[in-house]
């Protein structure tokens, strides 16, 4: 396990570095100088040169990359072209919205998906098993932002039960108000996420239900619940946990679009605004933070999967696939 942990950590660090490099290269390959974003049309060559000096785009690429990486290591993500404020603290302020939104939505999606997926598999031949399966099939085809729009129409505009969007200015000073602002976005993301999660839980449960070991346990006199508890759950959990890691990352990204529906001041709206204003430090900063988050979530999911599945531990350093 220690050797695996070391190797996996090395891979994580390597991919963080590679991801940072990739982002940097992609953004620099863009046609046009980022300095243009600072200037109005018809700027004089002197003004252009001054702007380039100011943001450092006149330096050699490698030097720019080096100073950006050094900044990253100090958690310094540069300064926004538009607001002239440092990007790092702004991202931190946005995460106060995005992180709770992601975690609440993810938790709700899991709470919905585990029982529904189990019943859809366990009773796959009954009408309600078929209906649950059909609904989840439909759910994976619906874009999250549209569900958000429909929920706003019904619960905010028609019934006036919840706010249609926005977030309290004082963030979490009044937790109740913050939570009501997050209610509809959380439900929106959770509904979409649970649809795909239900399908994984269902197929993992179907595999376990059709397995020889479960039949043997039943033949030896275990009750269905007993056999499921002792042999089924752990086996069904393995594929589900590996998917949960990916789903958590997807939930985080789903927040990017859904935040725009509800005009929440989160990371997603920050990125969209950054793109609209060609604010490169903001785009770069948000993308780096999001990609790092996705990589770290993947790392954590791999570790958890290894902890619950002894078979994976037995094959450390095994043959290639």
């Amino acid at each position, binding site marked *: 396990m220690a050797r695996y942990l070391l190797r996996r950590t090395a891979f994580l660090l390597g991919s963080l570095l590679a991801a940072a490099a990739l982002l940097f290269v992609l953004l620099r390959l863009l046609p046009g100088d980022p300095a243009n974003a600072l200037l109005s049309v018809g700027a004089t060559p002197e003004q252009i040169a001054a702007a380039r000096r100011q943001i450092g785009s006149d330096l050699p690429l490698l030097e720019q990359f080096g100073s950006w990486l050094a900044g990253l290591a100090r958690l310094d993500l540069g300064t926004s072209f538009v607001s002239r404020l440092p990007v790092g603290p702004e991202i931190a302020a946005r995460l106060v919205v995005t992180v709770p939104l992601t975690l609440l939505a993810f938790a709700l999606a899991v709470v919905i998906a585990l029982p529904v997926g189990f019943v859809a598999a366990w009773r796959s031949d009954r009408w309600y098993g078929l209906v649950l399966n059909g609904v989840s099939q*439909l759910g994976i085809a*619906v874009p999250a932002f549209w569900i958000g729009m429909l929920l706003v129409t019904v619960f905010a505009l028609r019934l006036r039960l919840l706010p249609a969007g926005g977030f309290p200015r004082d963030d979490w000073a009044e937790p109740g108000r913050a939570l009501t602002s997050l209610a509809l976005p959380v439900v929106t993301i959770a509904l979409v996420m649970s649809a795909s999660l239900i399908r994984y839980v269902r197929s993992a449960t179907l595999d376990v239900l059709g397995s020889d070991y479960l039949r043997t346990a039943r033949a030896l006199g275990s009750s269905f619940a007993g056999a499921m508890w002792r042999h089924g759950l752990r086996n069904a959990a393995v594929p589900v946990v590996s998917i949960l890691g990916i789903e958590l990352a997807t939930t985080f*990204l789903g927040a990017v679009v859904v935040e725009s529906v509800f005009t929440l001041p989160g990371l997603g709206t920050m990125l*969209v605004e950054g*793109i609209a204003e060609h604010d490169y430090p903001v785009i770069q900063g948000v993308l780096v933070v999001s*990609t790092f988050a996705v990589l770290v979530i993947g790392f954590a999911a791999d570790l958890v999967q290894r902890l619950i599945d002894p078979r994976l531990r037995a094959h450390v350093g095994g043959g290639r696939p």
Partner: protein
Amino acid sequence: MRGRPAFVIGCVLAGLILAMAAVSLVWLPYDPSDTTGGRLAPPGGGHLLGTDKLGRDLLTQLMVGARIALTVGIGSVLLGAVLGVTAGLLAGFASDWLDDALSAALDILIAFPTLLLAMLVVAAREASLGSAVLAIGLAMSAIVARLTRVLVKRVLAQDYITAARTSGTSWPRVVIEHVLPNIWPTLLVNLSLQLGLAVLAEASLSYLGLGPPPPNASWGRLLQEAQATVLTAPLGAVAPGVLLVVLVVGVNLLADGFRDLADPTRRRSR
């Protein structure tokens, strides 16, 4: 096809959107930028589904949207397939160190979420049809490449490949005669699932204002524009979403059908 209602339903749903897009190429009720219909006209009269807040005919917009959804979906799947299968074949055949390098690169690329990568490309270029295809296709190619690599490795480990090589078949012929025929069914299933995801990704991009610009607007853009008038003109906020779901469900059911065709053991167990 008998005994496979899901596949038939998938054909009908996807065919419906395909037909809409095909008709839009030769005939549209109105010009897409014609704003003479009056703001938010109700359904009926000269406008079958009414007009939007700028006076444009909704049915026309929906038909143009079908064309855009399919163009971006199919275009990005083609791009992703060409790039992905090539890279995957390369990695599958490569020596150990090159394979390690390529698969590490793919793992990192996959960690870049499709939508973020797409937004990055749009930030770099401008919001247009081409940007959307390029962005979604590039993001997809990493996923296709990783799948192709695993499939190629699995085929190359088979005895019949060793037999073919021993009897003097060249590598290019091995690829054409043995590798591709064995991996395409699984690839086809995956690519059709990717088509659904690409359509959803394009809708999200357009909803954020990063898709093809009006008057040739996509369904995502229509939804975004209709959001403000959802109470007075609900049809505009519902119809594009319904068509999106119809297309994606149709494509997903087709993928399921392909999977049953590709894997006879699955067919029997149903």
